[in-house]
């Protein structure tokens, strides 16, 4: 099945084209948003749902993977933990080192 439901792509596209989002995007990034990608994703999602077209699946997955890669473009500043901090759940009076 598609990574997101097709309603989500539709919503994202509509939201992207709205005035409010355009304003916020300009305020945050200094340029207007590009919404064509969401439309393409929506079309691909619909094609996937309708006919299970392999090309549509591939296009959609490629687009989503590209989105993920964009997020991971920068090297992280810190190392991620493998387990939560040990003192997170400790009762309060035992927390403070003396």
């Amino acid at each position, binding site marked *: 099945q598609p990574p997101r439901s097709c309603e989500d792509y539709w919503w994202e596209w509509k939201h992207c084209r709205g005035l409010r989002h355009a304003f916020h995007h300009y305020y945050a990034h200094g340029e207007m948003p590009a919404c064509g990608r969401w439309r393409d994703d929506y079309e691909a999602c619909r094609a996937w749902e309708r006919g299970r077209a392999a090309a549509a699946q591939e296009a959609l*997955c490629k687009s989503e993977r590209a989105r993920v890669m964009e997020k991971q473009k920068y090297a992280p500043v810190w190392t991620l933990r493998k387990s939560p*901090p040990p003192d*997170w759940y400790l009762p309060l009076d035992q927390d403070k080192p003396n």
Partner: protein
Amino acid sequence: MRPRSAALRLTARGPRPSALPGHAPSASRGGELARRLALPCLLPFAPPPGTVAGRRGEGQGSAMEQGEAASSPAAEEKAAAAAGEEAEEEEDDFGYQLFPDRNKKPQSFLVRSLFTFHNRCQLMLRMTLDTNPYAQLLLEAMKQSGCTVFNDRHFSCENCDGCVSGGFDSATSQIVLCQNNIRHQSHMNRVVTHELIHAFDHCRAHVDWFKNVKHLACSEIRAANLSGDCTLMNEIARFKFGLKGHHQTCVRDRAIRSILAVRKVSKETAEKAVDEVFDACFNDLEPFGRIPHSKTDAKRAYRDFQNRDRYNANL
């Protein structure tokens, strides 16, 4: 006062700014001075003479620690809001005096109920945690990371000094909320979101709050970016005007101010640290996945977070 044996990582946040800008008084007791004179907490960044790092004018601080105390691995740091840092050259004044109740015995129930804003703070906190989508997403994300947040254990409403609104105490893993400085629900929402982002970073990564200015800068950039601190309305209320890409300017500025308020580093060092990590950290939008400019965005982000298993499985 208890010696600095507890590792206290605090993020101080200023209250809703008021209309009068002012200058930070240069006295070392400026924080108290500001409070007594009821000076607004909207103070431009002006390092008092004789100190390396100035206080944040707006009272936005960030969670950080510096290991200055000899007897313990971590010292406490708080971001102070009002002007006037203690000019202690040997040890970093971590804004400890801004959270005077941290190491005191808790007050009696009657005193606390009748003479402080404790109940109001608790009510507003409960409202935030139950209804605000930003907070709900962060709580869910932290639960997934293994740090379930409990109201009575991980939140603490206390009286604070100066213009501070809250902080994250990494020693006790508590989020401190300043019941005397948070007056409106929207402010509480923002403070809780901001601190939860620090807590989330603490939970999911090895953040060296003490010694690494870059880690500190990164968390502060993320918190300013994602908590709604830098919305246009908030910036206008602080008399900072700008439109094109102003969000980034605001985030950068607030991060630098935070670092300077809690660490004894020079402005250049803080600016350099922020500049180095800015690109990576501004674009690190975990757990939101987008910059939430409104509650609608936050709700959408929450939905995406809940659906992430399906998303990852079908990539």
